[in-house]
């Protein structure tokens, strides 16, 4: 047991040894060490969050053919600190008829729902908060708390726009939870466990190869869960100003904003964990956790970059289209995919890994092809229904 292979346990042992040496009871010392561990993790996350603000602004600037923050420090790296100081010294306004307690509780819950997700993120085989055996469901449960915080913010602000934004956002979040659950069950079926560590260990072949459709559905559902474009109906700045957080100012708004960025980063991380092998990369993770953590964070940043890429290149979808897309397309597709995956898993799990992988990938590709073909026919029929009368006239004009 040394620092190079298991730094977390060593630090905890050293700390409890020190504290018990000072005459503290062992139970209290262990509790204090665990508390300090959580505190350090949250502190690191908040520092990462500060740089996520910089990253997001820099990336959106490149997508819009601008340079982004570039005045303070190298590449504008000090800009986010200036932003935070600005948020802290802004006047803190509470609307006159707001429900004070609920109004102040909502940003805290919003941030909390993101931070507690990191309890189950395995940064390295040994470095994780808790290896829950229901981790996949835990992701959904924290989403429920996020939903609650949005409706609390929208209602307590006593503002029409905030309430409308909250309604829309919650409608989207509640609906997209269902394809999310179904797509979370796909790695569960493939790995035979809901625990994050076991899912990563089972990925001799990355699950994105075995189930590309599952990875795609998870990503779409995650973007909707985050309320980011093209699913940002809840914000819709051109019609709702800013949605559920319109009345918040200063650091309370900052909590929503920072929570959203960290949430996107976290879901990028979960995408990496569930479908791209998490901290594993050609056996490097077994050498040392100091190599595993950068691997996971790199995968999380790549996932986050894809979320940003979608956000800044797609248009907002109308709410009825969005809900129809979910209920009439994504939900049935994810259930069919889950059944196909389970069936193929049962049929081929005892054969060679090659046959298993090929049949899994093949079933995904066939299902994807069937879906695209079905969509093509459906949209052609719809188009002909709309243009049916105009068509003969055009042909007559042409001849």
């Amino acid at each position: 047991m040394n620092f190079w292979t298991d730094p977390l346990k060593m630090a905890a042992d050293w700390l409890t040894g020190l504290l018990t040496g000072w005459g503290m009871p062992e139970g209290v010392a262990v509790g204090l060490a665990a508390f300090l561990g959580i505190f350090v993790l949250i502190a690191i996350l908040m520092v990462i969050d500060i740089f996520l603000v910089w990253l997001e602004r820099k990336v959106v600037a490149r997508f819009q053919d601008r340079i982004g923050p570039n005045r303070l420090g190298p590449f504008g790296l000090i800009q986010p600190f200036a932003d935070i100081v600005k948020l802290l010294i802004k006047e803190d306004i509470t609307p006159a008829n707001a429900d004070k307690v609920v109004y102040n509780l909502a940003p805290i819950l919003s941030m909390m729902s993101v931070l507690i997700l990191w309890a189950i993120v395995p940064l390295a085989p040994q470095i994780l908060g808790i290896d829950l055996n229901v981790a996949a469901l835990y992701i959904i449960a924290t989403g429920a708390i996020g939903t609650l915080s949005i409706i609390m913010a929208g209602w307590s602000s006593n503002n029409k726009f905030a309430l409308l934004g909250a309604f829309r956002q919650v409608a989207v979040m509640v609906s997209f939870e269902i394809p999310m659950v179904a797509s979370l069950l796909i790695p569960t079926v493939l790995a035979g466990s809901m625990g994050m560590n076991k899912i990563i260990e089972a990925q001799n072949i990355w699950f994105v190869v075995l189930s590309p459709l599952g990875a795609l559905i998870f990503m779409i559902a995650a973007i909707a869960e985050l309320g980011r474009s093209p699913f940002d109906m809840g914000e819709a700045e051109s019609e709702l100003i800013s949605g559920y957080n319109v009345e918040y100012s200063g650091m309370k708004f900052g909590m929503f904003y920072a929570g959203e960025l960290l949430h996107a980063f976290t879901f990028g991380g979960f995408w990496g964990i569930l479908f791209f092998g998490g901290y594993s990369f050609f056996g490097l993770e077994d050498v040392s956790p100091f190599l595993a953590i950068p691997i996971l964070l790199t995968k999380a940043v790549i996932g986050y970059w894809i979320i940003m890429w979608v956000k800044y290149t797609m248009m907002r979808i109308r709410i009825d289209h969005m809900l129809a897309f979910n209920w009439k397309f994504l939900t049935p597709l994810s259930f069919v995919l889950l059944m196909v995956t389970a069936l193929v898993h049962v049929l081929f799990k005892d054969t060679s890994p090659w046959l298993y992988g090929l049949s899994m990938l093949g079933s995904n590709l066939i299902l994807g092809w069937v879906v695209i073909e079905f969509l093509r026919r459906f949209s052609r029929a719809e188009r002909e229904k709309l243009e049916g009368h105009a068509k003969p006239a055009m042909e007559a004009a042409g001849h």
Partner: protein
Amino acid sequence: MTIAQIIFLVVAGATLGSAFMVVTSRNLIHAALWLVATLFGVAVQYALLNAGFLAVVQVVVYIGAIAILFIFAVMLTRKEIRDQGPQLNSSWWLSATLSVVTFGGLVGMLWGWKDMAHTVPDIPPGFDSISALGDALVSPDAFVLPFEVASILLLAALVGAVYVAFNRK
């Protein structure tokens, strides 16, 4: 008193306190939010009993779906969120008697129960409670019949909901 007992008492107290606030709060949204706190307290109790799956499902189903539905229903159906009129009606003594009798009966029953003093047994390391639960739900000599009956009931409810909401052109 062990730490587990202290946590149990604190959580149980908070759960009961928020349950009391659910029925006494004049503001219906506040009542719904107190209900969320109550349900969360129950989830913590499940977690204390080593039932992690039930704890998470409690949060997903009751807070994520049912409480949100309550809040939506209150917001969309009421013109006035605040409850008007007196809080007690003429039959308050009946419900008070009933609840006291039920509580007394439950306490009396548990008092005579020989396993009352048992603490939660430690789960042996490597025991996977969630696969045991999954096996029990689909094994013929355990709970497959109630499980399937519940599935059919939910399916019927789903079909009924689609039928009610279906817009015949």
